[in-house]
């Protein structure tokens, strides 16, 4: 009986931990822009991350970055560096920080912050050209950021 109670308690804790999403305003960046803690509490799914990387209206990461492993998906941009080998040259925490808000790592970068909802000049209502109504949603959800980071961690070859 005691054993069962303990199991139930552990399960309950796990469930709570799973639902623990860090809000965009609560993200803790390290001195050099890394984010140690998962934003969603749920491990990222690299397959889902790939889809986000190549989908316009989601991450659309290849709009600016070339990725050799994604050559089946047409039209990679040149605005940012190639992402080949990012999983080898950055840690998971650093990649999480770069995707969430690259300006915390590279001051003044043109890369948009994918997990930021405040501090913008003339924020709009998505792509309507009209003023935003109420609070903005981040460009990607906490779980989508984790999924992209999981995919980026698989890019460990140059």
């Amino acid at each position, binding site marked *: 009986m005691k054993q069962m109670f303990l199991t139930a308690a552990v399960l309950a804790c796990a469930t709570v931990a799973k639902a623990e999403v860090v809000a965009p305003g609560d993200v803790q960046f390290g001195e050099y822009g890394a984010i140690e803690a998962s934003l969603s509490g749920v491990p990222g799914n690299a397959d889902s991350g790939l889809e986000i990387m190549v989908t*316009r209206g989601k991450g*659309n990461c*290849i*709009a*600016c970055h070339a990725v050799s492993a994604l050559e089946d998906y*047409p*039209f*990679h*941009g*040149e*605005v940012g560096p190639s992402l080949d080998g990012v999983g080898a040259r950055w840690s998971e925490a650093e990649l999480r920080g770069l995707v969430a808000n690259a300006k915390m790592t590279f001051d003044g970068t*043109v890369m*948009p*912050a994918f997990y*930021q909802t405040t501090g*913008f*000049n*003339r*924020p*709009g*209502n*998505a*792509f*309507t*050209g*009209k*003023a*935003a109504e109420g609070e*903005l949603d981040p*460009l990607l959800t906490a779980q989508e950021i984790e999924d992209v980071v999981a995919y980026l961690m698989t890019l460990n070859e140059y």
Partner: protein
Amino acid sequence: MKKFLKASALAASVFAIASAAQADEEADLVVNGEIEITVRTSAPEHVDGLRDIYSGWVFRSDETQAMQMDDFDNPGMIFVEEAIEAFNTVEGSEGNSCASCHDTPENLAGARATHPKWNDNAEEIRTLGMQINGCRTEQMGAEPWAADKGDMLAMEALLASVSRGMPVNVQIDGPAEAAYELGRELYYTRTGQLDLSCASCHEQNYGNYIRADHLSQGQINGFPTYRLKNAKLNGVQSRFRGCVRDTRAETYAVNSPEFIALELYVASRGNGLSVEGPSVRN
């Protein structure tokens, strides 16, 4: 043998024409075999962020480039034809047409090259469109045309076409200085949730691809521009709206003080390039 030579000469000339059509970033633009267009030159002194300036034409595909080399291939010229008719049509309470004062469109050569421009009587900066409407309301007693819409864009295309080959020469000092300063500030101000300024793409990243788009310097010497994407003439400030919208920002309105200032500033970044409207772009 003679026949063979003739045939190969013909083949060679056909090949030469084909090669000319295969234009690239190094290509030169001559319209109708006679109007020489400056598509690249040194940046004007007041532009810190660029060494050289390039017309958007050099960033377009060979096929798109070729369409602008001959007026018969340039769909924008259809609207120029329409505007010639409008130019000669009496409208409004005063019994005037454009021709009543200006006689021919060619007499307005140079107007495109210097606008937006300070107007002493009105004591305001006027875009070319505002000046056209000034004529319509003040000289003709006619209704103003809607900005960046059919009639207006066609007339702007006509006025651009008669200035083709002339260097853009927009004044930035004296009475234009305040607008210049505001426009410059807006050019470098990042907007929207994507947090991008004009400079983010068109100064820092021109020549790079963003997905399938080849980023230009955003020069406006070719406006109004016929876009293959929407098969019509497009106005400068509507293009500004599109760009600002794409940063996920609240845009400014066409003919707002902000966009008039931005148009003056962006035009001045192209001082030295030739007027080439109506241009053809993707």
